[in-house]
């Protein structure tokens, strides 16, 4: 392992452990009751004991987040391709995509929950709205970023619109799409959680967000922290998963996946 990687692994680890130790010390030293702020030891213990019951809720939230991400990615990709084919379509649709993006999801979530009967579906719609824009805007940019020389080359050989899209514009857009996907992955999780907060109930099955609310109402603060920790770890896992996917798809040719040789 190179020095750089060791540094990037060990430094945050040491810093994190220091903060946790300070936290544990402060909680004990000042005798702070667990319903105000539990120490990290207690949080980990709660995660261990309550974890299995929380896992079911995590699964509900994950299902919403990943379904929303998948739908957002495929719809955005399709829409970006459509917009790249016609300036008219792009000019007509893009402003509304932006309006949807800048309107805070918390403010439209109640409406969606009223309109969409099925709870799972309404949460899905909220998460989708939050997640779709980064993929859309990045992919649109990527589809329009084809090298001018290559565009000429394709014209020279009489490439059809379809061939240019498939062999030139889509490969050019791939790194942009993946960068958008990395942002949308985290946003889908946030969208799922926010929507469930607004809904106040997860219907038959409850997601992790509702369990956090519930723990808060009941002053089960250690459990709240445990659920929060679980949520953060999930977000981190999603990020690394998508980062890995991007690396695997781009490692052969794209600058972003190159090791620093100089």
């Amino acid at each position, binding site marked *: 392992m190179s020095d750089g990687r060791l540094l990037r692994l060990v430094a945050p680890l040491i810093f994190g452990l220091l903060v946790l130790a300070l936290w544990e010390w402060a909680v004990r030293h000042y005798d702070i009751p667990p319903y105000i702020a539990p120490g990290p030891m207690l949080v980990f213990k709660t995660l261990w004991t309550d974890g299995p019951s929380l896992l079911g809720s995590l699964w509900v939230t994950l299902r919403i987040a990943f379904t929303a991400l998948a739908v957002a990615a495929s719809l955005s990709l399709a829409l970006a391709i459509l917009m790249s084919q016609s300036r008219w379509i792009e000019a007509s649709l893009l402003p509304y995509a932006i309006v949807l993006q800048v309107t805070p999801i918390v403010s439209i979530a109640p409406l969606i929950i009223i309109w969409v009967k099925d709870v799972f579906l309404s949460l899905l719609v909220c998460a989708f709205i939050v997640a779709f824009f980064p993929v859309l805007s990045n992919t649109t940019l990527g589809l329009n970023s084809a*090298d001018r*020389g290559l565009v*000429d*080359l*394709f014209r*020279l*050989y009489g490439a059809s619109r379809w061939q240019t899209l498939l062999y*030139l514009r889509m*490969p050019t857009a791939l790194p942009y799409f993946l960068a958008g996907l990395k942002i949308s992955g985290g946003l889908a999780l946030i969208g799922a959680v926010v929507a469930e907060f607004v809904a106040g109930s997860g219907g038959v099955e409850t997601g992790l967000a509702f369990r956090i609310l519930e723990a808060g109402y009941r002053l089960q603060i250690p459990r709240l922290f445990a659920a929060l920790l679980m949520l953060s770890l999930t977000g981190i896992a999603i990020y690394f998963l998508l980062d890995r996917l991007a690396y695997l798809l781009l490692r052969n*040719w794209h600058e972003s996946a190159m090791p620093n040789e100089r």
Partner: protein
Amino acid sequence: MPPPLLTLADVGKEFANGVEALSGISLSVDPGEFVALVGASGCGKTTLLRLIAGLTEPNSGRVTWSRRDDGRGSRIGYVFQEPTLMPWATVSGNVYLPLRLQGVSRRAAEPRIRDVLAQVGLSDFADAYSRQLSGGMRMRASIARALVTDPDILLLDEPFAALDELTRFKLNEDLLRLWRTRRLTILFVTHSVFESVFLATRVVVMSSRPGRIAAELPIGFAGERDAVLRTTAEYGRTCHDVSQRLATASGVAA
């Protein structure tokens, strides 16, 4: 004498912003010729090449081809100033592109790809990505891609301008070898007098703003065109002659 492969008759080109790029260009290229177009930067050399390739339309005059084919598509091999390779594809994938766009299957294209890669000396790099290649090797890949369709004419737009001198000399000699063995017709744009005299059987000197043809000089040497030629007095004299005409055409005192 066979008819010229390509004839430009009184071709003019004006850009959308009103700048007159080319004016009254009449030029013909015979099969098997190696024509070099020399001119100062911005004299419209690239525009002329793009016009011939059909990438832009002339405002006046005509571009005609001797074949029934309209001269577009696979009839032309084009090498840009930059290697212009697709970074996501391997060298053989890049060379395959023109055939792929014509609907040739990869399997059917494979022997032709291997053939041109061997001719440009890239056989061992068929599976490499362009980032793994040197500048000279990228240009070789670009030339292989232009040759894979067996074009009637090869258009090169200052292809070696960005390379170091040693690499450029080597590629000059390799291009001459390809021209001879494959009986190519080449139209080569450059701003280097030395390069044009070394390569071409005819040098066309262009003036600037608007680009016109100022002089045409047939080039012939007694000996082989190799490294020795660059040191001969005859080569030096010819270069001097072309330089003077270029200086006059560009309005610069020699």
